[in-house]
């Protein structure tokens, strides 16, 4: 198990620049999640670490040793693919044993490790089956088993759960995380799903257009996003944004509403408010009465869509409200109004 150090990593596909000089340090045993919209370069970064894509510049270090020039065979990693990529002609047991056999592990050691992994993953009954005779969830476990048996330097996951149904996905998230903690292996996990990122990662790397937008713990990204992109990407439902004119702490919206933010600024800004941060009308400094345009009941809470400052914002309140109210009387704390400058950077409070 290793620490992974990514230094000025660049990757071009011909003329297409996929990664623009990334820097990232991953501690030994850390579970780090790469998240971002489709096409932002997550898989490219992961595949560069794996050695599957040759790098165009910079380097990758395992425990301080440069490995950027090594082929995938010599990096001693484990990878779980989105389509699992199990060997179709081999049984489950042979799939798990393949990498160990390649490395000339003694037969009894192979048997021991296959049994160990199969026990943990509860796939012992299927050891003699071929992948095509397994369900999606079982294949996923076999793919995990193939990664586990090798005692490799690090685990790499490329959207391993996106082929599973929602229920199984939630369960496998927990299992993968528990397994990773049990083994203590350094892991890089790619997903486009921010909920998956928030629930699994020790730290999250938010990527956009081949660049790292922000690195931080789930709570850091939630409470202190550095950019409007991160603020909008992290959190569910999404943060609502309205434009405003700032004069110190006073933010004037286009409809004349004035809000007080804990952050001071001047000129044109964008305000960001998370739907779950709205409170009852009476309790707070910022009081709003909003026209409700739409509403959805989501389990025990209700999502309202309302007009504010010429845009539509989302408001989450507890309780399942099936009757749509004409207006909502709400409060919002000054520290819950984030302010972004015209370059979409968040202005610190």
């Amino acid at each position, binding site marked *: 198990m290793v620490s992974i150090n990514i230094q000025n990593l660049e990757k071009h596909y011909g003329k297409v620049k996929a990664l623009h000089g990334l820097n990232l340090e991953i501690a030994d045993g850390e579970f780090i999640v790469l998240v971002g919209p489709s096409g932002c370069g997550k898989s490219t970064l992961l595949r560069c670490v*794996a*050695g*599957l894509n040759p790098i165009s510049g910079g380097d990758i270090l395992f425990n301080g040793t440069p490995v950027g020039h090594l*082929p*995938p*065979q010599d*990096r*001693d*990693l*484990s*990878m779980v*693919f*989105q*389509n699992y*990529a*199990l*060997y*179709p*002609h081999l049984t489950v047991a042979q799939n798990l044993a*393949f*990498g160990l056999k*390649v*490395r000339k592990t003694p037969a009894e050691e192979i048997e021991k490790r296959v049994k160990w992994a199969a026990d943990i993953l509860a796939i012992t009954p299927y050891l003699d089956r071929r992948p*095509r005779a397994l369900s999606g969830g079982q294949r996923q476990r076999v793919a995990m088993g*193939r990664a586990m048996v*090798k005692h490799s330097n690090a685990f790499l996951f490329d959207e391993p759960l996106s082929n599973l149904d929602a229920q199984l996905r939630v369960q496998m998230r927990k299992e993968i995380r528990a397994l990773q903690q049990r083994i203590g292996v350094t892991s890089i996990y790619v997903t486009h799903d921010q909920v998956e990122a928030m629930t699994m990662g020790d730290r999250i790397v938010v990527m956009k257009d081949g660049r790292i937008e922000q690195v931080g713990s789930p709570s850091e990204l939630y409470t202190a996003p550095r950019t409007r992109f991160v603020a909008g990407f992290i959190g569910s439902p999404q943060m609502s944004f309205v434009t405003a004119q700032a004069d110190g702490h006073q933010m004037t919206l286009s409809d004349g509403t004035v809000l007080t933010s804990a952050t001071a600024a001047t000129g044109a800004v964008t305000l960001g408010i998370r739907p779950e941060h709205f409170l009852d009308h009476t309790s707070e400094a910022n009081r709003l009465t909003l026209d409700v345009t739409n509403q959805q009941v989501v389990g025990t809470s209700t999502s309202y869509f309302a007009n504010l400052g010429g845009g539509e914002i989302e408001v989450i309140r507890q309780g399942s409200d099936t009757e749509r109210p004409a207006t909502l009387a709400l409060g919002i704390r000054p520290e819950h109004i984030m302010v972004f400058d015209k370059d979409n950077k968040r202005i610190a409070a």
Partner: protein
Amino acid sequence: MTVSAQDTRTDRLIRFVFLAAMLIFFALPIIYLFSTSFKTPDDVLQGRLLPEAATLKNYPNAFAHVPVLRMIWNSIAVALLSGVITLVIAVPATYATIKLSAFRKTVPNITLASYAAPPIIALIPLFYLLQTANLMDSVLGLALVHGLMNLPVAFWLLKSFVNDIPAEIDEAAWIDGAGYWHTLFAVILPLIFPGILATALICIILSYNEFLFASALTFSEASRTITVGMSLFQGERLVNFGQMAAASFTGMVPIYLIAFLFQKHLVGGLTQGSIK
């Protein structure tokens, strides 16, 4: 919509007539050949389907005139050996081109171009090459030529099978530590086996039927193939069609046997992908 008994009966009739027509179309030449092999020279000139006075003499005479069995044996040896040569080169070449992107753009084009070129272009260079290599007029020499000749066909057939295997399967093997040859033998070969079998059969059949190179590059009994043997019945004065038919029919047997025995693999291999 319900299908009445009347409809199915007409359907069946139409299908029967269609299949019968196809069968006659494809079987008639073979039946005619078979029948001709029992005709006297006079009968042949009549041009009727069935001989007037059937004779069994054509077979022993043909075998006496030309060493038919020896030539069939040569053909089989050349075909099998060339099949092996083709696959030994084509399988790793296809893998390297498709999966390792070695000359990914050029190889498909070059193979296609060389296949499209008339083979006669290669004849004289091959003639001198074989002479220099001391492989003129030998089973090995012709097998080598056929083996190389069939490379484009094999490449294009194998290409689709190799393409069918998701890239992640190779990548998983590499990450598991397997080198490129190891991956080829332990992962790719088992997965494209139906394709390899079908490709082998097609290359063997192509070699068995080949005439141009065989006629130019083999001339002694030790290496002449049956396709060349067939042409020997064209004497200076007249063609002995009865004997020629007898020899042709005998020469057809091995290839029909192969096609018949392996037809499941041939059709199955070419129509179904390797990954299911």
